[in-house]
């Protein structure tokens, strides 16, 4: 049985711009799960394996091919060596730049900005005023609720409720250790975005199918 997940289109692609580290991983995984469960396609720079010019081009291509963008600025801070992280503001700038590029299709782009507190951005990123900015306070359930609420505002089809999404995500996390054991994988293997995305897609499809039977 092969996966029936549809390939990403402009309308279904959601570009995720967030920190890719261990601390943020639970929130990142919740975002990917919610998007995929709601039949969107989660896109991010982790899809790219090349470095240098090819990487920059591929990143711009992913952003150009994504109608929606989620930018989590909750971890805007200096790194351990005192240097600021520039990748996220860079990707956010590309996304907004594409939106106002004058190309009709790109002007349909829609953005969700996530932060820890609702008005914290005003102290360090005031130029983003006017965007849809929501806070998750670092809580997964709040993140899923805010994300689902924003997504529902973007499409006419009905999306699953946030309580149901939270319940499904919790079930996925309960199943995960056994899945990893059966596949002879470890949590570290989930750092490979392609494997992680496939695992989530297969779980959603498998769980839904067995529910319907």
């Amino acid at each position, binding site marked *: 049985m092969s*996966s029936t997940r549809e390939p990403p289109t402009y309308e279904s692609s959601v570009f995720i711009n967030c920190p890719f580290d261990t601390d943020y991983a639970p929130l990142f995984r919740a975002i990917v799960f919610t998007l995929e469960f709601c039949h969107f396609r989660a896109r991010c720079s982790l899809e790219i*394996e090349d470095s240098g010019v090819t990487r920059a081009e591929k990143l711009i291509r992913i952003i150009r091919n994504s109608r929606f963008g989620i930018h989590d600025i909750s971890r805007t801070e200096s790194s351990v060596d005192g240097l600021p992280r520039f990748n996220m503001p860079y990707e956010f700038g590309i996304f907004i730049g594409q939106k106002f590029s004058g190309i009709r299709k790109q002007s349909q782009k829609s953005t969700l900005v996530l932060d820890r507190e609702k008005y914290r951005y005003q102290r360090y990123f005031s130029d983003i005023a006017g965007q849809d900015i929501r806070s998750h306070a670092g809580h997964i359930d709040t993140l899923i609720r805010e994300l689902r609420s924003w997504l529902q505002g973007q499409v006419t089809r009905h999306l699953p409720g946030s309580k149901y999404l939270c319940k499904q995500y919790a079930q996925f996390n309960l199943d995960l250790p056994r*899945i990893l054991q059966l596949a002879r994988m470890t949590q570290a293997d989930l750092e490979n975005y*392609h494997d992680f995305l496939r695992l989530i897609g297969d*779980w959603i499809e498998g769980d839904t199918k*067995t529910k319907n039977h």
Partner: protein
Amino acid sequence: MSVAKKPESKAKSKPKPIGGVLALPRKHKGKISPAVIRAAVLQAIAERKAKG
């Protein structure tokens, strides 16, 4: 006069060339085989449902 149906061309099932390059099926870029992941996911779900 009836026209005999033309047999399906074998070329139809082959990948179509795009810009001179064959469009090959997308390769899984992960480290683990997709079949292994899928089998593990389905078995874990089945075990849970069996437990009730």
